[in-house]
């Protein structure tokens, strides 16, 4: 019997690979990454997602997500 190898669905967030979930929103990505800082700039495949859209903007599998934390601190 032939064994089927299932490849995991993933996305990259700031060049780090994480598992993709069905109906994954930007908010969910931030939760998974534990990105709790408020002043973020999020881009999914190069397109800016506004803060107000985090809850419903979907992240497709294989997406390249960039989450920039703006430099606060001291």
């Amino acid at each position, binding site marked *: 019997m032939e064994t089927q190898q299932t490849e995991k669905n993933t996305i990259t967030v*700031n060049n780090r690979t994480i598992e993709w979930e069905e109906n994954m929103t930007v908010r969910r990505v931030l939760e998974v990454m534990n990105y709790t*800082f408020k*002043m973020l*700039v999020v881009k999914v495949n190069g397109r*800016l997602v506004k803060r107000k859209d985090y809850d419903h903007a979907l992240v497709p599998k294989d997406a390249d997500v960039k989450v920039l*934390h703006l430099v606060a*601190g*001291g």
Partner: protein
Amino acid sequence: MDNQLSPSQLRLIQEYSYEKGEINRGYNNRTLYVDIGKNEFKERPVSDEMKEKFIGGKGFGLRLLWNGTKPDTKWDDPENEIVISPGPIAGITQYSGTGKSLVVSISPTTDLVIDSNVGGYFGPYLKFAGFDALEIQGKSDKEILVFIDGTENKIKIQEAPEEPKDSHELVEFLTEMYADDEKDKKNVSIVSSGQAAEHTLIGMLNFSWYDVRRKVCRVKQAGRGGIGTVFRNKNIKALVVKIDKVSPNANQVADLKPIMERGKRFTKEIRELDDEQNRMRKVGTSHLMEIMNEYDLLPVHNFQYGSHKDASNVDSKSFQQRFTQGMPDGCWLGCMMSCCKTVEGFELKTGPYKGQKVDVEGPEYETAAGVGSNCGIFDVDSILEINFYCDTYGIDTISYGTSVAFAMECYEKGIIDDQVTGGIKLNFGNARASLKLLHQMAKGKGFGVVVGQGVRKMKEKFIRDYDADPELLQDMGMENKGLEYSQYVSKESLAQQGGYAMTNKGPQHDEAWVIFMDMVNNQIPTFEDKAEALHYFPMFRTWFGLMGLCKLPWNDVEPVGNEETEEPEKVPEHVDNYVTIFNAVTGKNINKYELIKQSERVYNFQRIFNIRRGKGKRAHDAQPYRAAGPVTEEEYKSREKRYDEQLKKVLDIDPQEKSIPEKVKLLKKYREDRYEKLLDAVYERRGWTRQGIPKIEHLKDLGMDLPELIETVKPHLD
């Protein structure tokens, strides 16, 4: 405090009268020199070249200090100076964060130039009294104060009253003494230190203003590098400045309209956005406590760890409940960021003021993390009490926190014991022990005095007297150049390691805070990317210190649409505000690139100043290993998965086959090599040699090929 004394009752030692002149486009074009040993005064003209190359603030301070000292001047030599300069923008009231003073001196802890950026009204008032900088040299044989009377155009050296000694009382006392009446108190500002500054090397300066709503004096601190210790060593009890009033255009700027327009725009941002962004108006910088804990960056137990289960006890919500809300808490007029929070009516439980109710300034993030989490103290009351006593005794909370944390780790590791500490149980979390040390510093006795010499001196002593392992102490003692680290864990951010240890004055984050860009955003992956960040941000941030500006309004609120800009991390709209304001104040016409050049000139000057003093080279940019990675097995285990992964992925080493001590060693070698590569990349970007010496052609490009600088660098060039 009931004060029956009047200024005329203090013995006058020397007096000097001057003609005030007029401020023109942010400058008086004159600085004030006071020799408190010889009781001499001089007015020194400010040339166009000085303004062009050194701008003001820290730039003026460095230039005057270079001229006033020799390469081998020690911190406690009479010829060491304390220079206070506000910068050309300082004193405008139409934009937030525009009242800063820059203080420079030869530091007791680093033996280098130290600079410290501080709020309070002294700097702007000094300018309104007629001077772009105050340069103090000499040492008095009796305790004195210097009074700059901008109302009568006189400067006086007076014998200081013996009491009170501590800052919170002294500032109230002198404000009352020098103000004509209650209404006049807002026109007086005091610089002072405290008793502990006399017995330690980590003394700081308090810069005051009168809070007209609370009817109390408030203070902000020029904390870093022991300038308070220099101040007390010179036998100065206080500097007092008094003016008639602050007029709306006291700087006589070239064009007020654009400043007002940018100021209004910024104020609107703060009002509309701050509550949903960093909440600076409600909690100040304490909002960073939970953020740093969540991102594993909060120093815990002498920087061993980056988070702690009890950190929520000291998060910003805990402080918000204590801070008075709804008050315009700016440390200069017109600042809408209003982050200078205070706790009113705090009852002290220890020390000479036990049982008294006092107002505590802050704490800010650096204080809460330094005297709190880094020492394993997760209790708001203890942090407030330590904060209060550090302030009134004249102690820098950052150096204090890092020094106490180091001593605590030495105690827990058995390097020092009860016999050494005089019976103080110096375990992490023992707030009473920390306070005991602090009170000892004020009295000048006990183990507190040893801790108050700072981490470098403690290392030397523990190795010499208690047979401590030099390598271990070097690795875990969080100082570079003799200055204690400020409160961020840089282990997982190579760029921040450079941001700390490559600084001119020592590891203070005000030059570069790039941890998020590097570690979290993964935005600057290559050495060249990191080098670019460690060029741009230190230069950009240096600029605040040339101008008399606060850094916080730059990026602690993000304007609408910032995310759509090409470089949101630079906050381009706010950079444009600063360029516009500089041009509007001075009548010049710089752009954002020239802004960086202005800083580069002074930054390179400071580097060469260090070289002149026999330091400022590659060897002096070395970091303690704890800033780069895990020193102990426990630290390794706390992030074992991450470290194992790095060994496997990057070094092709199977972590299963190695013991933890072996893995610690392998990781150390790898991380130390990477830091050396970072130094190469950054030096090249900054126009320096591999030894960290500014190249002559680079100085020429910057217009800083001054003969004294060429002469200093030439013998060191490869």
